[in-house]
């Protein structure tokens, strides 16, 4: 299913018009009168990107963005404002806003920004899904297998692992085989990549942690 564009704007007229524009371009749209209302509904909302008005009664756009980072980090935020405001835009970008548009921008610019946000969403979603799958694989390991995996990716030899765990080298071999099997990898290098992407080892130095 296609992702949804969430429009959060207190101005009904603008909200409706923009929803119509995006719908006409074949996008799925959900409109929200205020940031508070959006946050309240967030759990029930379909994921996608957010068009967020900077100035609204109640919580401001920036405050909503901060909450979204915690609650729905995958949803890219495109800020909308009536008039450019350097201070607000810098804050917004620092907080991870995907784009910062003036309301007076052309429909094309708006569409472009939304397309970019949606592509980013798709990409992040895919990455997120991949990581989730890898985490699920790792989570499927038994405690002993996790211990073996942890030492393996740090480059320990079988006999070093056996020594560290106080088991026979033979047992280590069995666990090692199980781990490779469960993670669906053929080589040690692949296992290391998974460990790195889910944060079990420091990717920058690639040196064993701990």
């Amino acid at each position: 299913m296609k992702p949804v564009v969430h429009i959060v704007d207190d101005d009904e007229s603008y909200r409706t018009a923009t929803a119509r524009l995006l719908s006409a371009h074949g996008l799925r749209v959900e409109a929200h009168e205020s940031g508070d209302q959006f946050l309240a509904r967030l759990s029930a909302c379909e994921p996608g990107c957010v068009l967020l008005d900077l100035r609204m009664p109640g919580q401001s756009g920036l405050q909503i963005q901060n909450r979204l980072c915690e609650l729905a980090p995958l949803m890219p935020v495109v800020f909308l404002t009536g008039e450019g405001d350097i201070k607000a835009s810098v804050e917004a970008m620092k907080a991870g806003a995907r784009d910062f548009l003036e309301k007076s921008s052309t429909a094309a610019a708006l569409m472009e920004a939304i397309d970019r946000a949606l592509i980013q969403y798709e990409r992040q979603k895919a990455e997120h899904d991949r990581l989730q799958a890898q985490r699920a694989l790792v989570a499927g390991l038994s405690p002993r297998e996790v211990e073996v995996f942890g030492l393996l990716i740090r480059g320990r030899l079988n006999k070093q692992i056996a020594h560290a765990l106080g088991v026979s080298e033979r047992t280590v071999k069995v666990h090692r085989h199980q781990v490779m099997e469960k993670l669906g990898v053929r080589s040690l290098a692949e296992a290391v990549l998974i460990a790195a992407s889910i944060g079990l080892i420091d990717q920058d130095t690639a040196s064993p942690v701990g």
Partner: protein
Amino acid sequence: MGLGEWSGRLCCTAFLLAVAVLGASSRHAAASDASIAIVGRVPRVLVLYPYDERIAATTAAGEALRSRLLEATNGKIDLFSEFLDLSRFPEGEHVARMARYLGEKYAARRPDVVVAFGRESASFIVANHGTIAPGAKIVAAGFGTATAEKIALPDDVIGAFSTFNILKTAEMARGLQPHARHLYIVGGSSDFDRSWLTTTRADLKQFSKSFDTTTYLEDLTIDEFVERASRVPPDSIIIALTVFKDKTGRNFVPRDAIRQISATASAPVYGPYQTYIDHGVVGGNTVTFDALGRTVGDLVIDAIAGKPVSDLEAPQTYIADVRQLRRWGLAEEDLPPGTVPMYREKSLWEEHWVILVAASGLLLAQASIISVLLLERRRRRVAERSARLHLLEAVHLNQSATAGALSSSIAHELNQPLSAIRNNAEAASVLLRSANPDHELIQQILLDIQEDDQRAGDIISRMRGLLKKRSEIDWQEFDLNDVTSSAIHIIHGEAERRGITLTSTQPPGELPVRADKVHVQQVILNLATNAMDAMLNAVPAGRTLTFATGLANEKAELRVSDTGDGIPEERLIRIFEPFYTTKQAGTGLGLSIARAILETYGGTICAGNRPEGGAVFCVALPLAHREEQSR
């Protein structure tokens, strides 16, 4: 010392008089002796006037003669005047009676010189020389040499002749009216009038040929004269001679008759006499009676002194009435050279200079007081006007500043409908390109576009009102509630941005006031932005800006309250002074301008602190219709 001298002189005069009486009786015998011998007494001069004293020509000449003689003899001369009234009493009996009477009257004081003004006087004295003034020198004046010949003036009569050259008068008229086509000549029915007419016929024979018509208005009654003159063609010249008598025999002082004629004449009237001037005549060639009088005076003095005297011509001059030139639209530069202009404005000065000096002194004093007062008033007006202009300037500057401060929220507000319009239009165009357009939706989109366009228009007109610059106050009657609402509209975006809650309360009825709407809105915006600035440091949750309108003391009132820190007591008294500010970026003009604006419309402003915290500004304006409001 003066007294002694005077008494001595009196004795001397009495003696001289006695000698004179003796001498006169002795000379009576030698009546034919033409030379006069005045010994040891003041000379006597008898002036004979032919008509009565109202005839200005002769009296003017007589006056000039009189003053000339008094001046030349230093007052040592006896002057006698007799008015013969011969035009009204031409009968022989009257003349004889007059001669007898004068003979007896002057028996004891025979005149040394007799001056006869006019032809009739000359004839009279020539005929009655022996009876009235035997041995006296006779000076005849006031007529031309032609007349002198006609009445056969004896050789021993000296003539101060004045030739009234009617042709010169006619030529003067011609010069002023080169395009005139008709010539009219007015003359009366007395002997003198008729002789004038005869002379004129001869003198103007050649001259009249250059006109289409030449008409002699004679043998008419005064009413006929007036009537005829009033309907001559406009391109006419009217020459008035004399009217001593009209057809019915009614007697006139000629200038009065001429005045009646020229008052309603439809063309300019000219005449050969100085005295006609100021009686509606444009002018003419004349011997001025002044000149004649002085000429006669010189002759008399020479005669008294025993000098040989002979006939003289009194000088002729052209005279013109400047007012009449103006009346007929005649050009002064067309007058013959040397024309004496009469009744120029300066003549008033010459005649009445003492009164004029006194009056103008008074006037000057009055005028200077008045001009000082006027200047004062003018200065005050100018000052008031420039103060008002300065106020308007300051108001405008302040408006611009307020508009600047609110511009980002106004732009924000304006961008909403404009962006909505843009997106709606784009959506509609995308929908129309689709295979199966949703017409109902497109219809709704178009309606929404119209609505947003209206919304944008409203914002712009509010903004324009805020920025309007004017050099004049635009007085209008409006509801204070409306202006307050409109101001709330303008600032609501800014308030929202700052997390300020706006609340307002209004009375059920209207609060009509009379002022410049934009100015009052300006005051409200000033107070509102001040209040918002005052709440910068307040707890965000509690930031509230309240507008409350209502009636107080028969006035429309607006209270603007905030939940800021309030105004320190020591600042309350100075807060409306210009350039007093507590803000870093403030000009310190907002509140002083607000006060100036309100005072312009008879209103007031005051500031205070609320017991629950925060400041309150209270604006009051007079109600436009107090009586309606009180119902």
